[in-house]
């Protein structure tokens, strides 16, 4: 591991062509231990495809993918469970990894769905299922987490809490994260490296650099670039009702 500077997965100029159409083309990226790399971009820009290239789901690809770990936790964007399968949350948790009862309980507790452990997977709501998916991905203590819109359908309060949790987990486990998200607020505040996709890489770099890029403004509109300023604003003080500034502590 030390030989390649803690790189977990590396894509070099990769692309996928399906029915003579490029789904995505010319993507290079690397995810290192303890770092969060985020893919942003409009619908159909190839974010999920890029994640699937990194995971090795696509076989016939252009370019080169190197994976340096097999301990991977994946939260797919879409997953449908066939009704012919009687499967409980606890069965689903240990799908690709042997887990103890405690490990299952702990992971479900972290995402706030411990009470659903013995429920049928099909009877969960969208948000509940999403929480189970995240719990499953982190329970196996992966080196690399690939999260494709992990908080879709989760309520507002839960959304922030789950992002907090994901960050916390990555720090605790020291794992790398490849994140796909439409939530620019979160992306810009918690990410180490951003790739802006639109069939190819439009621009990439630190969040600070990306928001200043003209291509980013073109893709997301002018308002999107003001996002970061909100977060760079440090709340070291509060305002009293009459407007005077009170320094914290």
């Amino acid at each position, binding site marked *: 591991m030390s030989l390649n500077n803690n790189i977990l997965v590396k894509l070099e100029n990769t692309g996928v062509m399906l029915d003579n159409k490029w789904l995505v083309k010319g993507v290079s990226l690397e995810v290192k231990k303890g770092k969060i790399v985020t893919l942003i971009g409009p619908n159909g820009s190839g974010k999920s495809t890029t994640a*699937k290239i990194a*995971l*090795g*789901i696509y076989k016939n690809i252009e370019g080169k993918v190197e994976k340096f770990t*097999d301990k*991977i*936790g*994946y939260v*797919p964007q879409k*997953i449908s*469970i*066939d009704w*012919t*399968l*009687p*499967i*409980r949350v606890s*069965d*689903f948790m240990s*799908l*690709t*990894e*042997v887990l103890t009862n405690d490990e299952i309980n702990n992971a479900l507790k972290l995402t706030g769905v411990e009470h659903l452990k013995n429920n*049928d997977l099909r009877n969960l709501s969208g948000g509940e299922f999403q929480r189970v998916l995240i719990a499953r991905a982190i329970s*196996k203590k992966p080196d690399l987490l*690939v999260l494709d819109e992990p908080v879709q359908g989760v309520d507002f309060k839960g959304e922030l809490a789950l992002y907090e949790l994901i960050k916390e987990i990555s720090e605790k486990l020291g794992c790398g994260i490849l994140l796909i998200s439409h939530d620019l607020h979160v992306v810009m505040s918690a990410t180490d490296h951003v790739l802006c996709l639109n069939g190819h890489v439009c621009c990439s770099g630190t969040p600070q650099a990306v928001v200043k890029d003209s291509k980013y403004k073109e893709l997301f509109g002018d308002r999107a670039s003001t996002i970061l300023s909100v977060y760079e604003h440090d709340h070291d003080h509060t305002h009293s009702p009459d407007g005077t500034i009170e320094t914290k502590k």
Partner: protein
Amino acid sequence: MFDDFFIRALVAGLGIALVTGPLGCFVIWRRLSFFAGTLAHSSLLGVTLAFSFDINISFSVLLISSAVALILLRLQKTTKLPSDALLGLLAHSSLAIGLVVIGFLSYIRFDIMGLLFGDILAVNKKDLLVIWAGGAIILLVLKLIWKPLFASTVNYELAEAEGMKPEKINAVFTILMAAIIAISIKMVGILLITGMLIIPAAMARNLANNPKQMIIISIIGGLLAVVLGLYSSLEFNTASGPSIITAALVLFILSMFNIRKFKQLKK
């Protein structure tokens, strides 16, 4: 004790039910009923080849079924026809070729009815060995690949992403399917083996709420169907293979009543 033909039939049937139980669950979960039927149809060709070249029937059926399965996988990748059309194409063309080849084998006395519907009462000691040894191997392999197989049944991409190698596992599973058909063709016949795979598992789906439970209920259902079917065929002097499948159907119908009652109790 294996000298009595009825005991031999019973032991053979129970051995088959032990294996079709878990395999049948995967057939239902993966929506492979037609696939199982196609393999079974193609086995007629395997049987006729066995007679032509004087080789072991189970071996030749395993060979042909595996070949058809591989051709199917290849066609799925290279043509734009939907899977059910490809399955129909392979099932009926291999059945037809099998029947045509039988025509050339006029020098051999051939019991087509026995092939189509099986003749569990004609099972000899060697067949018993094939069923129990073959069945044990199938179950052992199934146990070894359980985790990746189940993971790729639930979601192929998730399994692929997390290193479960679903493509390889699917190939192994396909061969297991060909193998169970190969060892049981003589007992239940081409047309009824699919029933043995699907009906007990379908019954189990009505009663189970987790995968392992469904497999256990499916096995128990299959065993019960064999015992009930064979004894009633003795009692009413009916064909043994069809009697077993009919017994399985009766169990399935009973399991439907069970759910309805259960749901009423819940209300």
